[in-house]
């Protein structure tokens, strides 16, 4: 193990930037504490209001609740690491191929993982890819966004109920503000709308909205969504945020729903 320790030691010889002072850190910690207290207050009030509204809705909702739109799978699909890598690469390639004219991919990546993360329940196998996109002339005003496609399989993806987004919800940040179920080529696809807060410096309203599409097939959940912005500095690694957000989505909600049927995003056979 000495070689590993030695390698770590060498790595740490590299001088890093000066660390934050205790005052700076305490300032950030105080702000975080204030935010948490405020959030708790708002959440408490919202829960009280929701409890009243929910009580009024519960009885009628039980009478008209639709049955799940797809059947539960019989078993959890298994995917080896090697197979997952291949699927991820296939998804990444597909992302580059489906971009419409005028939208340029400037980089992307694919990833696979399994096991628990705080945002996803334990035992979920995930294969995914994303691409950063630019819209606009290469040397003129640019707008950046991100297109993402994911496949999830695990014991908790088996619900197959399009009314329940879990566990894909763990991949999305923000608040869901509406959804509908579309029929695309005979299959049911859930299309939802999310709202996420972003820095006011990037957009005056302080939030952005985006769509996602979800389809269940053979125990897999296929998710495709488009973010109208990216935290990555697209063409300038120094000035993060230099590229403005897309002011309109590249894909319509229906097109996103259609993309869940792309052969390149299909689960492995």
């Amino acid at each position, binding site marked *: *193990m000495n*070689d*590993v*320790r030695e*390698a*770590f030691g*060498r*790595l*740490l*010889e*590299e001088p*890093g*930037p000066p*660390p*934050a002072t*205790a005052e700076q*850190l*305490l300032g*950030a*910690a105080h702000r*975080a*504490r204030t935010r*948490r207290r405020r959030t708790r207050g708002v959440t408490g009030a919202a829960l009280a209001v929701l409890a009243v509204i929910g009580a009024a809705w519960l009885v009628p909702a039980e009478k008209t609740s639709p049955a799940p739109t797809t059947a539960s799978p019989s078993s959890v699909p298994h995917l080896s690491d090697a197979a997952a890598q291949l699927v991820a690469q296939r998804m990444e390639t597909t992302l580059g191929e489906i971009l419409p004219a005028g939208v340029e991919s400037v*980089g992307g*990546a694919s*990833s696979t*993982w399994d*096991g*628990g*993360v*705080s*945002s996803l329940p334990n035992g979920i196998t995930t294969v*995914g890819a*994303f691409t950063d996109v630019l819209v606009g002339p290469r040397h003129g005003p640019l707008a950046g966004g*991100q297109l*993402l496609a994911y496949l999830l399989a695990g014991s908790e993806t088996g619900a197959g109920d399009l009314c329940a987004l879990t566990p894909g919800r763990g*991949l999305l*940040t923000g608040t869901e503000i509406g959804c509908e179920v579309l029929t695309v080529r005979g299959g049911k696809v859930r299309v939802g709308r999310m709202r996420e807060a972003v820095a006011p410096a990037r957009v005056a309203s302080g939030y952005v909205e985006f769509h996602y599409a979800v389809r269940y097939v053979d125990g897999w959940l296929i998710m495709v969504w488009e*973010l109208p912005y*990216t*935290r*990555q*500095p697209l063409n300038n*690694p*120094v000035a993060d945020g230099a590229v403005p957000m897309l002011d309109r989505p590249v894909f319509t909600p229906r097109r996103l729903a259609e993309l869940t049927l792309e052969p390149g995003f299909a689960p492995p056979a």
Partner: protein
Amino acid sequence: MDRDGEFAAYYAARGAALRNTAYLLCGDWHLAHDLTQTALIKLYLVWSRVNRHGALDAYARQVLVRVFLDERRRPWRRERGTADQAVFDRPVHDPAVEERLAVRAALAEVPPRQRAAIVLRFWLDLSVDQAAEALRCSPGTVKSQTARGLATLRAALERTPELAEGQRR
């Protein structure tokens, strides 16, 4: 001493070590700075409870690893490395720098979870059980992740001529 005073004293004593650990996990000083700050802020929010149980170090370590893994797993939050795009105005021929770059590149080939297992076991000298607690997985998983990670890291290090030469020296 009040909470702020205790926290400042803890940061003075343990901040650098946490930042080093974060750097070994992510290989980027700026991201390491962010990860450490996020972990310490989370620690501050539960300071009284954790301090009462005398578990500050274990909690800070666990949060740091979780923050790192979460950061890596949210692709739209993943910062792109700029090493390939760096432009230097003069050639650099410092063998130490080249070795460090080679080690960093080798470490980057190890998947995040396996890298976390290696750092916890061989840099922080945690036992398998302690590492399992920090990673929230079973001891068996820690063992397998460590073995796989070591194999990947060693294979990558052996491919690097500068390091192989350095080890021969």
